[in-house]
């Protein structure tokens, strides 16, 4: 019987919470440092900021062992298929953080050589702004992702979850615009 057919009862509900907690507390990032953002990513793993506090100190060299891809740096058109292949090699469930403005939108490199945002290649969960984002910004992005994993649904596909988050974001934005002035 597929898991989707299980009714939501006491047992499955608590197992879901347990799985979400386990997933958020043991994200293992894949090393995907491409440019200067990788330096900040490394320093967030080092003693001063210590990503081990969030259970993600091991940056896996093998995408098969990683849950989270932190795309740190600008992605050139030649790197794009490689990035997609690494993403495809990762096991489900998997998440992507676009770290820095270059990975998120292309940043100041609006030219023919740089991919204008890795969300053209892979589905991105969190965008971390900054050039490069400091370790605190990366950790803020990671904590936001933790919150998404904790409050999300474990059996839904990512695209549906993403869509619902998008609606939440829009309603929040409309609140701000309505509240100003």
């Amino acid at each position, binding site marked *: 019987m597929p898991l989707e057919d299980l009714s939501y009862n006491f047992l499955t509900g608590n197992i879901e919470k347990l799985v979400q907690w386990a997933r958020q507390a043991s994200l293992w990032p894949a090393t995907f440092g491409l440019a200067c953002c990788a330096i900040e990513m490394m320093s967030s793993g080092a*003693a*001063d*900021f*210590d990503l081990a*506090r969030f259970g993600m100190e091991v940056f896996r060299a093998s995408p098969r062992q990683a849950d989270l891809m932190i795309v740190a740096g600008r992605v050139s058109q030649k790197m794009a298929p490689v990035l997609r292949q690494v993403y495809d090699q990762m096991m489900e469930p998997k998440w992507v953080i676009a770290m820095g*403005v270059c990975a*998120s*939108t*292309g*940043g*100041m490199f*609006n030219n023919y050589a740089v991919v204008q*945002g890795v*969300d053209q290649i892979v589905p991105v*969960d*969190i*965008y*971390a*702004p*900054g*050039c490069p*984002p*400091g*370790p*605190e*910004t990366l*950790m*803020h*992005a990671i*904590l*936001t992702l933790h919150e*998404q994993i904790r409050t999300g649904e474990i059996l839904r596909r990512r695209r549906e979850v*993403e869509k619902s*988050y*998008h609606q939440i*974001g*829009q309603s*929040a*934005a409309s609140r*701000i*615009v309505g*509240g*100003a*002035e």
Partner: protein
Amino acid sequence: MGILSGLGGFKVTFKQIFEPRVTKQYPEEKRPKPPRFHGRHVLNRYPDGMEKCIGCELCAGVCPAKCIYVRGADNDPANPTSPGERFGFVYEINFLRCIHCDMCVEACPTEAITESKMFEFSFTNREDAIYTKAELLVDQEGSARRLHWEDWRDEDEEYTSGWVRATAPSGDPAFQGVPGWSGELGFGVREPERGQSDLALEEATEQFPLRKILADRISRKLGGKVR
């Protein structure tokens, strides 16, 4: 020797137990930011509540990432938004393009746009990253709007007034001692730094250069001793 000889390699490890801890527990505490740190922008107001932005689009012109979009409009003479003829009707910054180079702050002739120290924010989609005037403009008291996805602390609003500007008189050696920023906003006012003031004023205000501040901070972190 035997077993004990293997322990020699742990000498460094055991010595570290008695060293002061360097880890910053980020979500609970932030590390202090340098005085010139560039964070999220704010659009300032004059003390009477008028907007400083005059819609001249110099910031949009100088932006190397082309992340600023400004459109000016004529002020309503009966109820002006800003002093002068025009005001910033549309002001948008895409923070997923912005590289926080501070060139918009240097270009601004009225110190309308400055950068705060808040750098801890992230987005779940690209639309959220485009900040409009509703998010950027400070409130009537002059403090930045703290949006719920941003991690504001009180110290992030320190020293938000503009730093030296390219058009400032202090760019000229003849204007030594004249700060290039007005700090009219009432908060975040910066004192003159070395090279922007005469030495007597510097000693009087006990303002020290950035290098001294950082050296103090590092030695404090290490418990007063310098390695």
